[in-house]
């Protein structure tokens, strides 16, 4: 009896020793600790925590690296990343944005680490959408691996459409205006009581709506090398005119500069039939806050100016995961980034947080392409240009509420003529520099 117990004990020890030897071979970073910062996403903070718990636990089981995550709120994310790049407290790995600014303020000692080798290892730049490269790659060097993405589509109320006799989502600007006019209800004084259309212009942000329109009529915000703003062009003026006309001429859209204004909440409350330019998260948001809307809304790619298939007629955004130079375990940190940005994990995170993805393969997954809501997003993102310009001062140029570009859009909507507004915007951009 005693003997067999000892024998059992010995075999046990041997097995343990055996596994630990295997582990030592397989897990060179066993016992390493990493700190990971990520911004808040999704409809409920607890869902994000649960998803991160699972992903970090799986990763630890595979590699022995334990990842301590901290969810950074959007109110302080920018300050924290700035301080981290300039000598303050820095995590090993972080979910970043404004990559070019962060890379520029980084020094030899602090800031973002260059990750070209990791990009090659993960399949090169074609692994991700164009916006992914534009955001993460600064002067030919990559400072992050693209993960989440976003694009803009049309959200519409199917019930309103049926009642107005509209059978299909609009595909051109003319159709958009026509449909919106059918859906708009005004009182005897001409005030809109129910708007056919609303911009996804939370807090009076017209800039992103205008970027979409610019892409739809074949324009771009900057030249291909990102060395010059192409604002003084036919397309740019056409887009500005359309932005302003929807509000001032066609009267299908309210002019809202209200800080509390949010197009999707208007949509949920039934005040608005179409929202121009919603994001992937919108569906969960609606279902959570307005369950009565279930089954009454749908998404479609945004219309283009004439229906012609412009190249890159949508806009998309991307954000990368970066590693800080101050990390003591650069290799372990790279392992984590590689794991976190892998297709499987990204698909899982996309599902849990209701986000889109920068990885082309993930966006081609049936989860995106066969879902009634998401397929508009996967179509749009495949043919899109970057909505954020890779400039150090982009956060200043596109600063809400009164950076040059948002001001230009708001001024045109409020009656300034396009040429004056463009000239003013360009001179302000000149003053800021890029």
């Amino acid at each position, binding site marked *: 009896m005693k003997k067999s117990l000892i024998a059992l004990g010995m075999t046990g020890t041997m097995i343990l020793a055996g596994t630990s030897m295997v582990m030592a071979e397989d897990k060179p970073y066993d016992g390493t600790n990493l700190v990971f910062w990520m911004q808040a996403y999704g409809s409920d903070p607890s869902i994000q925590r649960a998803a991160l718990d699972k992903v970090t636990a799986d990763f630890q089981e595979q590699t022995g690296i334990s990842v301590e995550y901290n969810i950074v*709120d959007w109110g302080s994310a920018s300050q924290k990343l700035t301080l981290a790049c300039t000598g303050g407290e820095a995590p090993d790995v972080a979910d970043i944005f404004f990559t070019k600014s962060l890379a520029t303020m980084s020094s030899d000692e602090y800031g973002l680490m260059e990750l070209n080798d990791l990009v090659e290892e993960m399949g090169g730049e074609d692994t991700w959408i164009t916006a992914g490269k534009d955001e993460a790659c600064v002067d030919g060097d990559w400072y992050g691996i693209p993960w989440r993405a976003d694009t803009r589509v049309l959200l519409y109320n199917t019930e309103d459409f049926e009642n107005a006799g509209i059978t299909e989502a609009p595909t051109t600007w003319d159709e958009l205006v026509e449909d919106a006019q059918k859906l708009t209800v005004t009182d005897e004084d001409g005030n809109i009581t129910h708007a056919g259309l609303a911009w996804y212009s939370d807090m009076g942000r017209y800039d992103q709506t205008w970027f979409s329109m610019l892409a739809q009529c074949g324009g771009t915000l900057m030249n291909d090398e990102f060395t010059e703003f192409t604002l003084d062009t036919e397309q740019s003026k056409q887009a500005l005119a359309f932005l302003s006309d929807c509000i001032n001429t066609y009267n299908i859209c309210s002019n809202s500069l209200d800080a509390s204004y949010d197009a999707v909440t208007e949509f*949920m409350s039934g005040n608005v039939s179409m929202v121009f330019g919603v994001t992937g998260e919108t569906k969960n948001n609606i279902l959570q806050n*307005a369950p009565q809307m279930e089954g009454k809304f749908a998404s479609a790619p945004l219309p283009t100016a004439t229906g012609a298939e412009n190249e890159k007629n949508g806009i998309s955004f991307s954000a990368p995961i970066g590693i800080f130079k101050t990390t003591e375990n650069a290799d372990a940190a790279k392992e984590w980034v590689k794991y976190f940005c892998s297709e499987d994990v990204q698909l899982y995170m996309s599902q849990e947080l209701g986000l889109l993805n920068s990885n082309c393969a993930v966006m081609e997954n049936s989860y995106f392409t066969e879902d009634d809501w998401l397929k508009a997003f996967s179509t749009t993102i495949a043919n899109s240009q970057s909505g954020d310009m890779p400039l150090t001062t982009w956060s200043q140029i596109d600063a809400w509420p009164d950076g040059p570009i948002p001001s230009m859009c708001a001024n045109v909507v409020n009656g300034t003529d396009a040429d004056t507004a463009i000239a003013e915007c360009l001179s302000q951009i000149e003053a800021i520099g890029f």
Partner: protein
Amino acid sequence: MNAKTKKKIQKVWKVIWHYISLFLISCFVLLPYYWMIVTAVKPTEEVMQSPATLLPSRLSFTNFTKVWSSIPLATYMKNSMVVSLTATVVSVIFATLCGYSISRYIRKRAQRVSFVIMLVSQLIPGIVTMISLYFIMFNMKLTNTYVGLVIAYVVWAVPFCTLMIKSYFDAAIPVAIEESARIDGCSNFGIFWRVCLPISVPGIISTGIFAFITAWNEYMWASIILSKDKLKPVSVGIYDFIGQYSANTKMAITMTAGIIITIPAIIIFAFLQKYLISGLSAGAVKG
């Protein structure tokens, strides 16, 4: 008889008017709380209705159970309590010592200079100095600690607390009491400690309340120096519900959290308002 009735009516009318006017002011003061509560207990589909309904069609308390699992609210509240109470105690100690010294020795140069420093420090706009302060704290390894928060809160509360307690000592504690102790051979600190302090409790409590509220409400500093979720105070924690574009998409649950975090502070005030006012009152004779 007639004159008497008239006077009586006048008196009743005065009472009625007193309460009517207080009621009207209450409407303004309580409007946000009314709207927080109504939003929190509305059924989900009603929250985003326009025009807004003024009362919920039925009561729904799901938010009150959901909020605890949605964010670590209990931890946040504990953090707020720990930090605010510690900051209160330290501020009161510093302010009492300093305030007493200024009050009793205002003719000395050091005291006069200190007094001016206290006032001038109130002029400093916090935002830019926070960057320098951040790096001081970071180099002392105090980011992501309660200590880092407490130090800043103490320093921001101390000047006003000192001015408060100084005027309390000026007005409420006669120097004559101290003179007799001095004749008995008591040291300067002994006079402060054994004679003055025991009879200054009301002034100290009201000073403490002020320090507590300053710490309880602070947002920016805490949001900058803390990156660990488990250390956040509620004033920052509520930001968990706000998304990238700060849209009001989680209004009902945000309001629920707002109600819950205001309750402890209300309870504290309900008990302490009497002390707050009497403590201030004694020092109010002089500014």
